[in-house]
């Protein structure tokens, strides 16, 4: 983060509810968030096997109105935005001029019930202010764009797991099971707009809802009631981290930062060099990324599979014949696989799947193997 965390962390609309559930609360990117309610492993398994509910209201929600919004975002984002159909959601990156990653985001193209089209960016909580400042600094004078930070007026709930669609379907006026993954729709909840998307950060199927803040408690109760037959339970940031790690989704501040580029991060799919018509796109960071690509990459994000039960955690050195060749960016004990898993950056020559390496786990060298990502992929 560029700024010091505020001395009084923000609270989501569900803060009191989390406390009443006996959640362990932590300061996360300036927000008081639940890290776990019961146990990370229990919440993780409940997400893989049934359905859980996450309060993800700390994520930044930035709305872009106006005719110039698509063109502005085309320039800001590594993927093209103005050619998105209404209802599409895309994963993208925001790079600086050097090709370093400022944030990873979801961009939604939406239409209100009255027919107004707009774009929505969901950004990391820790990067929200940075991204607003960055975009405002790049704002062309003539742009017919209005940026509204909707983070504090709305809440965001993620319902995730194999029973997520069945849980929310009866509550919504649209059929979510008929929606494709990475699609979204504006619908109504109690006559107020509600954005429903088939998205998530767990590696499971699921839905995310963006709702008005004053409706949060009510909608939460409806979701819990509808999910009771599937044993719905809340899940915290601890399980969110182990779930996303199994699914090999990068986390900003760990796998991604301003000195890492999308190509090293294995996110080349999120860089579109050309638009839908096959014309070269101009976006911030393009030239630097093109240079990096032609010069050849130095390192690469990989998965590491370890022996034993000790996890290789963030910051640990990856070695080959005793010499440092990389660094672990995230690591945990995988509740699904019941073994330690890690992601790391290693020098390109050691990034091949099957390469034998070592990790320095608090002074002890432990054997590890570069493996395929993701560690976990849902079936069906």
């Amino acid at each position, binding site marked *: 983060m560029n700024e010091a965390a505020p001395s009084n962390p923000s609270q989501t609309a569900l803060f009191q509810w989390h406390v009443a559930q006996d959640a362990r609360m932590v300061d996360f990117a300036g927000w008081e968030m639940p890290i776990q309610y019961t*146990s*990370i*492993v229990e919440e993780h398994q409940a997400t893989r096997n049934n359905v859980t509910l996450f309060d993800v209201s700390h994520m930044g929600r930035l709305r872009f109105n106006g005719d110039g919004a698509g063109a502005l975002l085309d320039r800001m984002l590594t993927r093209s935005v103005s050619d998105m159909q209404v209802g599409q959601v895309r994963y993208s990156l925001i790079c600086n001029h050097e090709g370093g990653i400022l944030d990873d985001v979801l961009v939604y193209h939406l239409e209100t019930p009255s027919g107004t089209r707009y774009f929505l960016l969901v950004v990391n909580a820790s990067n929200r202010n940075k991204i607003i400042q960055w975009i405002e600094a790049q704002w062309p004078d003539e742009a017919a764009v209005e940026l509204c930070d909707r983070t504090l007026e709305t809440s965001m709930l993620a319902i995730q797991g194999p029973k997520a669609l069945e849980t929310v379907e009866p509550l919504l006026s649209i059929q979510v099971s008929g929606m494709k993954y990475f699609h979204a729709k504006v619908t109504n909840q109690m006559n107020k707009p509600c954005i429903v998307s088939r998205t998530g950060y767990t590696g499971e199927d699921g839905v995310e809802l963006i709702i008005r803040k004053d409706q949060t408690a009510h909608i939460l109760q409806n979701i819990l009631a509808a999910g009771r037959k599937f044993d719905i339970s809340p899940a915290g940031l601890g399980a969110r981290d182990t779930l996303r790690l199994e699914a090999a989704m990068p986390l900003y501040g760990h796998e991604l930062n301003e000195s890492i580029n999308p190509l090293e991060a294995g996110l080349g799919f999120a860089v579109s060099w050309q638009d839908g018509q096959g014309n070269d796109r101009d976006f911030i960071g393009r030239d630097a990324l093109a240079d990096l690509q032609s010069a050849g990459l130095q390192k690469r994000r990989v998965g590491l599979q370890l022996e034993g*039960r*000790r996890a290789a955690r963030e910051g640990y050195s990856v070695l080959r014949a005793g010499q440092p060749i990389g660094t672990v960016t995230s690591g*945990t*004990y995988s*509740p699904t696989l019941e073994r330690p898993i890690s992601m790391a950056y290693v020098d390109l020559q050691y990034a091949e799947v099957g390469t034998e390496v070592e990790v320095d786990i608090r002074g002890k060298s432990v054997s590890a193997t570069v493996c395929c990502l993701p560690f976990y992929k849902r079936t069906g």
Partner: protein
Amino acid sequence: MNAEALLYCDTHEWVFVTDEDGQQIATVGISAFAVEQLTDLVYMELPTVGAAVTGGEEFGEVESVKAVSALYSPVSGTVIEVNEGLPDNLDILNSDPYSAGWIMKVKVDGALPANLLDYDAYQRQCGESG
């Protein structure tokens, strides 16, 4: 063992000292509060028998899904026995942290450190941090 009869470190280890033929033997474990705070334990590194431990210094580690925590010895002395089966059955720490969940036994050198807490003082500390 009765939790109320034990002494505690502010780092959440417990110790129970017996006298065997004039030699003080300390049994060491971690408190129920520590186990609850850590949750989701996956790994424990025991000291080796014969190793020297020092009061207030690290003698092993315990790892949960979320993080790694050091274990600190309440006493100085020599490790004479370790609970070999514990690392493969860390669930014991949830059900019985004060008896079956013991970690090591130490032949104590010298006097016990003065900063060990009795049960009431330890409970007060947990109340403040918990």
